[in-house]
């Protein structure tokens, strides 16, 4: 058994944002007057230091800025943590029989390392990222931006921004609100050929809200 790690988030450092708990409920954490509010989220894969590093990287890829909230508010690191601990991270969705041999790019990824292993190795290259200032963080990531690890980080950051919240990211449907994606909806039969050239932006709903019950996310499968 791995020692249990928690990601401790302080409301002041986040500046009053939504975070996502393991009870799959978004919580808006406000900095109280003179009061330090902290949240401890149990991690499934990362150590706390790794989680802070990944969160810092995701926040550089998809920053919180004047165009809206980003990876921190969406809980991207929680999404990635669960994916790496689950079947995807452990290579359940790949043919992993040897021999492993290098191929041409059109043959796709041929390595023996699982996504979880690629993170463990890749994180060594950006250790302590969260302790650096913003421009140093950007410079560090620029140095690795053509590596397979960075490519995974970028893909997973986008996924964590826009997944259904049952997967740990997109807390409070914040990602879907940013792009006007309504989530799974039963019907647009009345709207599909209306709204030509103008925005149609129904309020986003999660799968659980549409179903009226929770669905089981793939990362929780045995």
């Amino acid at each position: 058994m791995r020692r249990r790690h928690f990601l401790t988030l302080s409301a002041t450092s986040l500046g009053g944002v939504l975070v996502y708990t393991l009870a799959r409920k978004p919580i808006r954490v406000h900095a109280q007057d003179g009061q330090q509010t902290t949240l401890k989220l149990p991690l499934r894969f990362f150590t706390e230091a790794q989680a802070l590093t990944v969160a810092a990287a995701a926040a550089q890829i998809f920053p919180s800025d004047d165009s809206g909230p980003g990876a921190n508010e969406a809980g991207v690191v929680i999404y990635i943590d669960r994916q790496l601990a689950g079947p995807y991270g452990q290579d359940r969705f790949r043919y992993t029989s040897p021999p492993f041999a290098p191929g041409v790019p059109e043959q796709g990824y041929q390595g023996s390392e699982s996504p979880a292993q690629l993170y463990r190795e890749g994180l060594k290259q950006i250790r302590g990222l969260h302790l650096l200032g913003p421009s140093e963080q950007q410079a560090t990531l620029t140095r690795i931006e053509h590596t397979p690890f960075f490519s995974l980080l970028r893909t997973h950051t986008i996924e964590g921004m826009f997944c259904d919240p049952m997967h740990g990211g997109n807390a409070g449907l914040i990602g879907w609100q940013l792009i006007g994606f309504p989530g799974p909806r039963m019907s647009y039969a009345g709207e599909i050929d209306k709204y030509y050239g103008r925005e149609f932006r129904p309020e986003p709903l999660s799968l659980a809200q549409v179903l009226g019950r929770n669905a089981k996310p793939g990362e929780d499968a045995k």
Partner: protein
Amino acid sequence: MKRLPEVDVVIVGGGWNGLLMAKELATRTSLSILVLERGGSHKPSEYVEGMDELDYGIRLKMMQDISEETVTFRHGPRDRSLPVRQYGSFLPGSGVGGSGEHWSGISYRYTPDAFELHSRTVEKYGANRLPEGHSIQDWGISYSELEPYYTRAEKMMGISGKAGNLHGKPVQGGNVFEGPRSEEYPTPPMKVPYLAALFRDATERLGYHPFPLPAATTSRAYKNPDGVSRAGCSYCGYCERFGCMIGAKAQPTNTVLPVLAHSRNFELRTGCRVRRTLRDAGHARGVTYVNAQGEEVVQPAGIVMLASWTLNNTRLLLLSGIDDAGKVGRNLTHHISIPAAMAFFEKPLNRFMGAGAAGIAINDFDADVFDHGKLDFIRGGSLYTVCYGFRPMANFGVTPASVKSTWGSEWKKASLHYYDRTGRISFYGEHLAYRDNYMDLDPTYKDRHGDPLLRLTLDWRDNERRMAAFMSRKAEQIAKEMGATEVTPFPGLKRYDATRYQSTHIQGGAIMGAKEGNSVVNNYLQHWQTPNLFVLGASAFPQNPSGNPTLTALALTYRTADAIIDRFIRNPGPLA
């Protein structure tokens, strides 16, 4: 090995072709029919829960388990073949209904000349216009022979569309380049989403002939000739990679399986992975399979039908040593499928709404409907735009060339702006057959049971590259006419790329033909040397025409079913 009592007919694979064949035989004869499906069953409730992009669209929950079995791939006969370790260029479905559960539903008929590709091309342009190294041949069947079966398949699925050629007379608003139809489509065209309307209006202004895509995502409630009713499409945008949660998209489980529900002479066994077809003295004797409990089972049968998707049909023949003429695995083709142009607009497109086949196409550059005399390639395809439901994980972050960064603030801002302002003009093109594009058994890599994987040797040739470049230029013109402020043309077809999703229309391997020497099956999909063995599906297609394959595969299955019922049962022997 456990030996079970003999059945009259065993069908390998519970997808479109296997279940359609089972329906015809079980309802029109008293033969005992057994379908063996390697996956599990699907419940309709699962498809509502399946409206989740991550688990279904990205992690591909409806597909075959690639960790147990995949294919290997290389570009040329002298290259090293390596396993396709994660899904990329095609997505074979698993479970009852097969890929027919997660398809998009675009349901073309092939053009008449596609069936006679070799003779028509030579007749018009001369044999020297056939590309070097080709293995192009005629299908051994004509469009007019297949027409009544196309009509039946369309009625069974309730295809939505508008005829463009009724009894040889062109009909404006339909695909005027299609072959003569005996009847109008069973249901009217789907509604037109905004992006598709822009495409329709622009192509009309350019003098082309836009028409609504023929769609198995039926436009309104429909009852088919078997008495099966389905709802009309709700344009929810979860078709490809998803099962339809209201059953509007024709799928084997909502269109064919309900008819079989009360057939006493029909049995469907799930979790059964067929490993060999048994044959001796020129007769198929049955199959062996591993059941859900892991036991090896012998299932004797009077007639054996392989209907387990293109690649697996080929693999089963090779694993079983049934390759009398050395033709099994030949004519491997993969539908050319490219984003011919990415177009960026000022106005929002609301692209989350849509359906797998809700779109508009032009076939002015299809097949040989335009003159190739002065061009540097033969054949063609369809330029179209389909609003299949734009989901964010797969589509966020596409920006015009003027945006240089791929992460960080500037990229984020541009990606947010363009997310719902990005449209794609796609191209589906005909892939010709070449001697060096083929399948055989891999010498190194094995599946979970220790059987060799299928090895694909596949690459594009200049004919495809030039066709793609030509179509990309046309798509760029159309995008500009649609009002796009920036357009990114397709960078060009280079080597075959097993990592880029193209389509699941990978075909050939057990091709049909008019003569025993040049093909594996006759035009009844009956094995030339083994009259009680049939190989159904797109493995029979000698070339890969521009349209999507399912409708043609089903038309051929109907024709085979009729021939078995009308002739073969009384007089088992060669049908052609």
